[in-house]
């Protein structure tokens, strides 16, 4: 095998003389431009005289010129480095450059690149154009320098192609390109297959001459004396000696060939693709070459066991090629693959250790060896080459054929997360591999079969051949089909070893953690054990096998333990989750209760189980224990006999309340408050009035309203605990208000207003802004002579809801890509950051006050992006954030660094996603969720002074809240001074209301500014 070396840096050690400009650089300006190159190419093609040597132009010089032109035209000469490698592209100065000693290679060449800057990790990339094939890239970091070896294995050795090689600095991204390698076809006449045969023939010839035989011996050889396996070689040799005289073949061998020999001959011709030169001696078919391509398998196959093994040898093995050939022939395609077989035999001469040993041994065979021995020796070389190739002898002496995984414990390895150490044992994983002697202990074999071999350690030329021939008569050097050699006693299928232990086995898997041979289920979750055996003893062979091991956690959890329970409830629903229930079926969990009645147990699937339970109304039964218990027998950490998994909760009567619920009591009225918990025996409490007008008997709960009016808070405290309940209601159901009338707006007729009836209607809905309507009229017509006559009218004022919207930031839904790093082309990175802000006013709890919107129902938020990317120049571009994309969860989107987002506050939440891009297209993204936790506000309407009605109206509230105040949480709160106008009516908790007020007494004080009517609604 030819090896081409490309050296950079290291070539400095090659001492040469001073190197001037490249001969293509005619004006010696250290630049090869297009015109110069084309002229040079013209002369190169025509092999014309060139003024500056070498002349005629050598291929290497020409291709160097092309490379320099492609790489930027300017170049420099490296002192001490011979031409043409000494001319390197100038832009690469200071960096390792890559130069190959030649611009062309042939199939099966080994291209090697040596690097001197080994401190940086380099990767190599290869590409072969226009030619089907593949590379096997060998990275050798055992030396100080990077060495990349790349055997070229084109599938069509007669085609042409271009090979590109690049070295990449993985940190900086810098790339150094080699000059393109022209892949030349194998010379047809000296092609590998024919060359092989010729070579073998020469060996035969030489050996025979050395043995005292003349060439004519072969021509007149009685084929019966030629071992069957090498007869084709003899035939072929005779042909090659007379390539232009096919008659010679027939003359020599045609008459001697039996039918079997002829068939053998045809097969040889087909395999070696010699049909274009040699016809069958009996006028057989002239084979034609069809071009096709196919892929070789990456691994060899153990035909005996059917398992795939990973080839260790990077050489293309004969068996691989034979497999490929078989495939090609099956597809009625490329007969040329047979040549590959021969080619690889050639290539194996250098790296096929045992074959090499045998070959070397042949050199020691004495010339006077018996003739059959000479032939045997050659045949043995090939025969054993093939033989050992089947078993990858020398490089693959063994293969793993089986892997056993055993777990000491039940097949179903339930365990729990919280089991106590010592309660149970641990599961033990036993992994063992059986290594089959796919190869052999060849020293032992030789000792067995060739005792007394003439050459120490090398089989005797006769003994060994006979031994093989007798034991394996089917072995055919150029057999079409791969031979399945199984059950060869002493050579294969022996159990080579059973290996256990960390020395040879690397056990991985189970939650991706490496575990030792003592397998211990450490984590919850289904486990899949993957055992990979990597042999440090058998040349790095490996086998991987997986085994399911159900190391599932089993855990029962009651999901809803905090439900409030009343004794008189019909049913309460509890849910439990059994972590492994999805696999074990719906009947895997039972509920039990200590009291009450189980109405239903319903498996819901996915490990969820529902209990419908009717609580007991007997207080003494409480607390009630509710238990969810798995019926699966579990084992803790692999050991059986553990307690089933279960979870229990204690349920107590948690729902008790004050009854009845009242909104207001008239002054002087009495009400008996009691405790209701749904049972006949409610807990005993002590009553008290926390605030407000009224008294309550501590033991009976009898409440007497007044004196005075106002809000009252009563409290019941359980005697056996500190638990309390409170209720707030109003004393004084009749509310009074006043409205003042401006005397200027009074009727002109003199009169005295004795009483007025006024009604105030406030209508609005929800949070929508709207008008407020106020209507009023006198209770009865004014009497004659009174200051004010009948007064009536309406007022309509534009109302608006002024919200205080507090929101909180939900957990960041996705900040994974908020900061992203990108290479800046200078070996470093820079960050692209997506971030934004909006006007924030925080309350004491850290919530965010959102600004008002344009309408009562809408909220407006201004978002300002602060996306960041490295400014300045990155990879030669002036860089900055250039694009901002906003995406909102209500389906809208926007662009720009600052946007205003309006959205309905009824959504209650908004997901904001910002994505930024810089000029390089690099991006970052952040996504956040705003959750509105409170909408608070005041409803106000503008009171137009021009419509100020000055009268004082005393307000009367209805005895109960308005019917449409359906929300039980509504509270009507009034503050008033019955002797003055200016009462304030406050509604809380409701969303709509109709309020009526009735004046009961005229009390006009036009000069009192406090008598101006005010009205507000809060907390809507």
């Amino acid at each position, binding site marked *: 095998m030819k090896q081409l070396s490309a050296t950079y840096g290291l070539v400095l050690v090659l001492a040469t003389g001073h190197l001037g400009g490249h001969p293509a650089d005619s004006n010696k300006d250290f630049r090869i431009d*297009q015109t110069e*190159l*084309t*002229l040079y190419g013209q002369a190169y093609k*025509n092999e014309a005289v060139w003024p500056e040597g070498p002349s005629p132009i050598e291929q290497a010089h020409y291709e160097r010129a092309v490379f320099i032109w492609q*790489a930027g035209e300017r170049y420099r000469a490296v002192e001490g480095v011979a031409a043409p490698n000494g001319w390197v592209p100038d832009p690469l100065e200071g960096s390792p450059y890559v130069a190959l000693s030649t611009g062309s290679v042939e199939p099966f060449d080994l291209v090697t690149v040596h690097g001197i800057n080994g401190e940086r990790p380099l990767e190599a990339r290869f590409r072969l154009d226009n030619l089907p094939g593949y590379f096997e890239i060998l990275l050798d970091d055992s030396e100080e320098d990077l060495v990349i070896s790349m055997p070229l294995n084109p599938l069509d050795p007669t085609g042409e192609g*271009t090979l590109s090689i690049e070295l990449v600095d993985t940190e900086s991204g810098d790339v150094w390109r080699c000059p*393109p390698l022209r892949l030349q076809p194998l010379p047809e006449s000296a092609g590998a297959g024919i060359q092989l045969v010729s070579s073998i023939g020469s060996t035969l010839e030489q050996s025979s001459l050395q043995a005292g035989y003349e060439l004519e011996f072969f021509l007149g050889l009685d084929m019966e004396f030629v071992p069957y396996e090498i007869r084709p070689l003899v035939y072929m040799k005779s042909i090659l000696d007379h390539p232009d005289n096919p008659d010679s073949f027939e003359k020599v061998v045609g008459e001697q060939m039996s039918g079997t020999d002829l068939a053998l001959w045809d097969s040889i011709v087909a395999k070696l693709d010699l049909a274009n030169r040699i016809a069958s001696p009996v006028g057989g078919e002239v084979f034609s070459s069809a071009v096709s391509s196919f892929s070789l398998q990456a691994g060899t196959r153990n035909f005996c066991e059917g398992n795939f093994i990973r080839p260790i040898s990077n050489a293309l093995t004969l068996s691989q090629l034979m497999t490929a050939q078989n495939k090609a022939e099956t597809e009625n395609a490329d007969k040329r693959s047979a040549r590959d077989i021969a080619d690889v035999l050639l290539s194996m001469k250098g790296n096929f250790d045992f074959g090499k040993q045998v070959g070397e041994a042949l050199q020691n065979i004495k010339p006077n060896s018996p003739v059959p021995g000479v032939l045997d020796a050659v045949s043995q070389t090939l025969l054993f080459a093939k033989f050992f190739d089947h078993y990858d002898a020398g490089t693959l002496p063994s293969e793993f054929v089986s892997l056993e995984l055993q777990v000491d414990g039940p097949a179903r390895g339930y365990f729990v997360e919280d089991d106590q150490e010592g309660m149970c044992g641990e599961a033990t994983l036993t992994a063992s591999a059986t290594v089959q002697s796919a190869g052999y202990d060849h020293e032992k074999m030789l000792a067995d079969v060739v005792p007394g071999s003439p050459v120490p350690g090398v089989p005797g030329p006769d003994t060994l051949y006979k031994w093989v021939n007798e034991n394996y008569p089917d072995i055919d050097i150029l057999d079409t089909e791969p031979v399945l050699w199984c059950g060869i006693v002493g050579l294969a299928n022996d159990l080579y070893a059973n290996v256990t232990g960390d020395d040879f086995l690397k056990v991985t898997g189970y939650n991706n953690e490496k575990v030792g041979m003592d397998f211990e289920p450490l984590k919850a979750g289904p486990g899949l054990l993957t055992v990979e055996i990597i042999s440090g003893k058998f040349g790095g062979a490996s086998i991987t096998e997986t085994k399911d091991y159900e190391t599932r956690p089993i855990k029962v959890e009651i999901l809803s333990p905090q439900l409030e329970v009343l004794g008189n409830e019909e049913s309460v629903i509890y849910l439990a989750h059994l972590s492994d229930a999805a696999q074990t079926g719906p009947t895997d969990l039972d509920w039990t209760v200590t009291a009450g009645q189980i109405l239903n147990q319903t498996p819901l699937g996915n490990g969820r189980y529902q209990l419908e339970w009717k609580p007991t109304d007997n207080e003494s039964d409480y607390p009630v224990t509710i238990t969810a218990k798995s019926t699966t027998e579990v084992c803790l950490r692999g050991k059986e006999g553990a307690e089933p998994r279960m979870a229990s909760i204690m349920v107590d009567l948690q729902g008790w309340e004050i009854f009845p619920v009242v909104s207001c009591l008239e002054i002087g009225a009495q009400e008996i408050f009691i405790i209701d918990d749904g049972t006949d025996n409610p807990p005993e409490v002590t009553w008290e009035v926390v605030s407000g007008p009224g008294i309550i008997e501590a033991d009976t709960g009898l409440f007497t309203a007044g004196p005075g009016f106002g809000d009252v808070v009563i409290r019941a405290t359980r005697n056996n605990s500190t638990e309390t309940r409170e209720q707030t209601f109003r004393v004084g159901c009749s509310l009074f208000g006043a409205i003042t009338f401006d005397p200027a707006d009074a009727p002109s007729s003199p009169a005295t207003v004795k009483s007025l009836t006024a009604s105030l209607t406030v209508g609005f809905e929800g949070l929508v802004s709207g008008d407020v309507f106020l209507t009023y009229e006198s209770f009865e017509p004014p009497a004659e002579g009174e200051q004010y006559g009948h007064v009536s009218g309406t007022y309509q004022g534009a109302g608006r809801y002024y919200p205080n919207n507090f929101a909180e930031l939900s957990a960041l839904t996705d900040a994974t890509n908020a900061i992203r790093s990108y290479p800046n082309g200078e070996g470093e990175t820079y960050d692209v950051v997506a971030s934004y802000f909006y006007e924030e006013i925080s309350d004491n709890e850290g919530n965010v006050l959102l600004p008002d919107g344009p309408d009562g129902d809408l909220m407006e938020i201004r978002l300002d992006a602060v996306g960041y990317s490295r400014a300045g120049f990155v990879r030669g571009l002036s860089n900055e954030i250039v694009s901002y994309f906003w995406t909102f969860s209500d389906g809208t989107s926007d662009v720009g660094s600052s946007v205003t987002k309006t959205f309905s506050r009824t959504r209650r939440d908004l997901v904001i996603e910002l994505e930024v*891009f810089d000029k390089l*297209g690099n991006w970052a993204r952040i996504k956040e969720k705003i959750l509105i936790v409170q909408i608070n506000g005041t409803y106000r309407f503008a009171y137009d002074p021009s419509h100020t009605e000055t009268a004082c109206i005393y307000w009367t509230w209805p005895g109960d809240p308005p019917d449409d105040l359906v929300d039980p949480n509504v509270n009507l709160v009034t503050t008033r001074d019955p002797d003055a106008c200016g009462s304030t009516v406050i509604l809380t908790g409701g969303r709509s209301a109709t309020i009526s007020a009735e004046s009961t007494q005229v009390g006009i004080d036009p000069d009192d500014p406090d008598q101006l009517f005010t009205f507000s609604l809060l907390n809507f």
Partner: protein
Amino acid sequence: MNPVNRCIPLCLLSTLVALSGFAEQSRTISGTFPSRVEISIVPPEGTNAWSVEEVLTGEGVSVDLSGEGIFDEENGKAKWGPFLDDAPRVLSYHLTGPAGEVALDGIVSFDGTDEPVDTMDVVILPDPQTNFSGWRYLTLPGELLHTLGAHPLSDVNLDGFNLLQEYAFGLLVPEIQDGPVIIAVPGSSANPPDCNISYYRNRFAEDLVFTLHRHDPVNGWLPLDFESIGIMAEEFALGDTEKVSEVVFAGTPLTEVEGTFLQVQARLVEP
């Protein structure tokens, strides 16, 4: 451009082999995103060696050069040759770079005699984000644009997806994992499932066509209209994936798995 008279002693060499016939060369520009440039060269009969240089002004770069052409970053030139014959060739490349004007001016040299490829052309490059060539220009770091790593089928970051896939469905994980996967929705044909498929796609690309395919057990993948089954293509937005219950990886015959299978395909369209 006039032939350059390089008066050097080697000029004599150009006369050693007389050329006969006339050269024909032209430049054709097609497409908008990106521009595809074709240079057609018919050398004079008897030409021994010829090469082409196409100078790109500004920050324009050429990618996907045919005929083993290379882009000389140092000089901003696309180069082909030398070709040691007189066979006509059509050389092509994609033009990309930052948005703006790029002037194209080429020279072909026949045995050392230079001739212009054509008159100078000016191309207005679109936003590079809108096309695959431009995306590679923006995305690939360093010199990678002009190396093997820029090949559309190159997996430059070794994540299992080639550049074309990443251009269509997202640059890096995790986006790509939500991208061109096959989504299996269990159910029978008699009971069409409620399908939801969510994926990332390049919202800037103007040279991509996304199609939805549904796997038919008999006929294989068949194109499907997104809207016909109520699926809306979402652009770089996570959709509802709750109903995605299984991802079938390559190697599992879909016909052996119960369910409806959807996949999104992206196709690069030439301008």
